[in-house]
């Protein structure tokens, strides 16, 4: 542990950038410069913390007392930096993509859009680096509010209705989480995230632990879209596509599953979970979510809706990975945070590129689009392969560890869920690729790729997906980090 303000700057840089973004609202190029600049600086700051985290030196800063006895504190542990790397890295690409998207569609309120995006990223990194539950809640709630203007961006009746639904779910989750935190505070006397479990060794009856666990999962489970708390996510697809891409495939929903991993590994810990049997309950919920969401995805004709249900399913991969309570599955779950991020953001980028270019949202209308937009649909194919869990895309790696863990822990059923879900993924994604390239239709004759501002980011994310399959530890040591996280959580043994 060493004190460093770098984590604070990493959180604050995009919050500060909001000011110049708002001030340069009449000069779009300057405004976008601030966004991209903030994204680059943020990623650079996060990256600069990586070597220390790998070496086991944890950067740490206490800012002030947030409530009596609890500091507003940031700590860059392996799990935190893992998530921060994914979110801040993909923000750079999303920023570039956003510029192409909002200008391509000539969206209104672009300044508000970029400003809210910046606040969202600040709070996401804040969530990643939170050292205790109260700090986590502070950033978690800021994220809730900052996402709202992005969801209702179009300001249509439908958008407002979705916004209301979103607020209903997330604000309820917020107060539930607050109750859980307060109760934990009274039980454990502290609120720090402790690898292996804050509540380990706390003398409390099993029934108390069970209710508390339910509250925590209720709190983080909404953003993690665990069924039946998922309904806001498909509704939120009314948002502009880059929002769906970064927030509803990476930052917001991953804050939810990140929260689940924190709760499982750092608040309750494997031992307490197992002794109270709550791991079984979480496993069942996650397994049902995976299967049901995949089936529901099959029924969607709207591309973004299909991707949304797919996201619901894949988020629960992470939840299931955490709930299995075996080191391999835990590693796989953590890795899937990154894998799903790169794959799903690719797919959403593709959906957005199609929408901007030919204004189509329904899968049934996409016959032959691959011939007009080969790069876009090529990238889409890569993402699809990955989500089905096939090599050479990184979805395969995380799923491999998830499967290993399921077998190792003797949960045959969990393994079956992963396999069946893989098939379902193939069933709802491959036909899109098939339509795009092999269905005869010349309706897109003369159409070209979308602007390079959109195509380049989506090709990069597709390449990253492949890259992280071939070199899971490449560039940013994601694999090492995942192993370190698992090691810290399971270090005390089961």
């Amino acid at each position, binding site marked *: 542990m060493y004190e460093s303000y770098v984590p604070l700057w990493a959180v604050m840089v995009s919050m500060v950038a909001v000011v110049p973004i708002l001030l340069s609202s009449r000069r779009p190029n300057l405004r976008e410069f601030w966004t991209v600049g903030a994204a680059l600086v943020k990623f650079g700051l996060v990256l600069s913390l990586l070597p220390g985290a790998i070496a086991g030196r944890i950067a740490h800063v206490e800012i002030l007392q947030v*409530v*009596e006895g609890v500091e507003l504190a940031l700590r860059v542990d392996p799990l935190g930096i893992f998530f921060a790397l994914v979110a801040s890295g993909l923000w750079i690409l999303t920023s570039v993509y956003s510029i192409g998207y909002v200008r391509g569609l000539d969206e209104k309120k672009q300044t508000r859009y970029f400003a809210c995006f910046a606040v969202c990223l600040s709070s996401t990194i804040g969530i990643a680096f939170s050292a205790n539950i109260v700090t986590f809640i502070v950033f978690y709630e800021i994220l809730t509010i900052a996402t709202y203007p992005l969801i209702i961006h179009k300001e249509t009746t439908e958008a407002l209705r979705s916004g209301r639904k979103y607020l209903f779910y997330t*604000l309820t989750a917020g107060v539930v989480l607050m*109750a859980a935190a*307060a109760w934990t505070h009274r039980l454990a006397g502290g609120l720090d995230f402790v690898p292996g479990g804050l509540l380990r060794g706390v003398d409390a009856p099993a029934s108390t632990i069970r209710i508390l666990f339910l509250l925590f999962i209720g709190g983080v489970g909404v953003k993690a879209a665990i069924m039946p708390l998922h309904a806001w996510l498909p509704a939120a697809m009314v948002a502009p596509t880059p929002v769906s891409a970064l927030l509803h495939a990476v930052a917001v929903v991953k804050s939810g599953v990140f929260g689940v991993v924190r709760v499982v590994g750092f608040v309750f810990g494997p031992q307490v979970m197992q002794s109270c049997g709550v791991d079984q309950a979480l496993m069942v919920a996650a397994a049902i979510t995976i299967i049901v969401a995949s089936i529901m995805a099959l029924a969607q004709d709207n591309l973004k809706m299909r991707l949304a249900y797919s996201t619901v399913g894949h988020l629960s991969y992470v939840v299931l990975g955490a709930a299995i309570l075996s080191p391999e599955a835990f590693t796989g779950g953590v890795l899937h945070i990154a894998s799903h991020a790169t794959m799903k953001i690719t797919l959403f980028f593709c959906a957005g590129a199609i929408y901007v270019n030919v204004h189509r949202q329904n899968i049934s209308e996409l016959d032959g689009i691959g011939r007009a937009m080969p790069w876009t649909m090529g990238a889409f194919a890569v993402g699809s392969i990955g989500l089905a869990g096939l090599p050479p895309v990184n979805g395969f790696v995380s799923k491999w560890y998830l499967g290993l863990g399921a077998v190792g822990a003797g949960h045959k059923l969990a393994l079956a869920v992963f396999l069946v879900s893989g098939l379902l993924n193939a069933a709802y994604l491959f036909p899109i690729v098939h339509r795009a390239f092999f269905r005869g239709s010349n309706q897109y004759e003369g159409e070209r790729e979308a602007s390079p501002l959109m195509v380049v980011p989506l090709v990069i994310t597709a390449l990253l997906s492949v890259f992280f399959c071939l070199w899971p530890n490449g560039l940013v040591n994601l694999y090492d980090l995942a192993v370190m996280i698992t090691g810290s959580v399971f270090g005390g043994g089961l």
Partner: protein
Amino acid sequence: MIDQNLPVLVPVLFLLAALLAPLLGQWRRGLSYLVALLALLVNTAVALYSLYYVVVNGIVRHKFGGWVPPIGIEYVLDPLAAFMIAVVTVVSLVVLVHSRQVVKVELVGRDVPFYGVVMLLLAGFCGIVVTGDLFNLYVFLEISSLATYALIAAGEKPAPVAAFRYLIMGTIGASFYLFGLWFIYNMTGSLNMADIAAILPGICGETGVIIGLLLMVVGIGIKMALFPLHGWLPDAYTYASSASTAFIAPIGTKIGAYVLIRILLYVFEPGYFSSQIPLADVIMWLAAAGILYGSVMAIAQKELKRMLAYSSIAQVGYIGLGLGLANPLGLIGAVLHVLNHAFMKACLFLVAGNLRVTIGHSDISRFDAALRRKMPWTMAAFTVGALSMIGIPPTAGFFSKWYLVLGGIDRGAWIMVVVILVSSLLNAVYFFRVLENAYFKPALSMDEAMGDYDHPDADIESFPREEVAPSMLVPTLVLGTGIVLLGIFNAFLVSAVIRLMVPAGL
């Protein structure tokens, strides 16, 4: 030397200003405002210094005319009193600066008496807070009530009726208090709080003491608008001038809450009302009912000020609930909420005032997205206040709820925890309804408003800026910023100041 006189300074200065403001106003109209402003500036400085002094040096007692209590009247500044005075003066100062323009619009020609009455109101409030004598407290209670009647009556057409209703209710409340005090005096032979506190433990089982206490609590409950004694509040807040409401709403009911805390925790033994008689439970359940009732009723309102009025009933419930929990964290939550809610409600009522001055009404259903263009800063302040009422960190509202929830868990009062959480969501319902209208409801274009329906959705950007004058905007923004700062620095306040108010034995 002056330190020993700190307790007296604030109410006396206000009384003096209450005299001077109308007198000098006869000579030059503008002077009445200046007198009021000057008095408030000085008193705010004194109040903040007193708070600092008391926190560092401990309780200050002032014996009026050198008479030793219990014969003489004693003024006492302890952390709780100093804190309350600071809240009252700081919030009032901001509201006073704001009120000048509102008075010009809503109380035409009545500005001179207005400032005089406001000074009287503040003299009453501050007197209630510093006095160490239960009968003297009654006197100040009446002073503040009289001022309140006058302030409420000077408003819209139905205002005199609302004021009359409050007059009746307030008088009943005061009578209950006085009647209860008679019992206590009868049993103890004293009116001095410290003296009574010393005598009571020996006789606290006597029926007379219990009856006296209950009567007093009912009387104060009316002043505090504790459910179900809140009937006077909605009309009074709605029909009074925005300037008056902004003074009464943020602090008026809190003074009632203060008296309740003072009597239950300082005059009586702290554990008395929770362990010897089941009074704490009654207060807690009534408060919980009030929270739900106020929130649900707020959802049903169409007018912003009326919605805020019902919301006030709910928010006073938080304070009552924290007190009813009868444990340190509950009290901390209650006291912190006195401060937080004063800022939040003041901010929101100032916004209501800004709206009335600028667009002439505060009908929620008539708000539309043109507002975000016309008055971006006012609406930003409203958003911050609303988020704080809902309890989104890092705004202040989150943190008082945090301590209340902790207190609820300590007490094992799970239903209370649920009530607090549910009410957050109800707050979200009625505040987001307003926010949705003010930010996203399609606006009628200028043409359309004049009967030309060719351009359905007006371009929001085409509306001109109509933000209020700086003298109104700055106070609104100061409070909005204050809400965030109070949230961020709440832990400091709690450990440095509010902790000192927890009496031993609670």
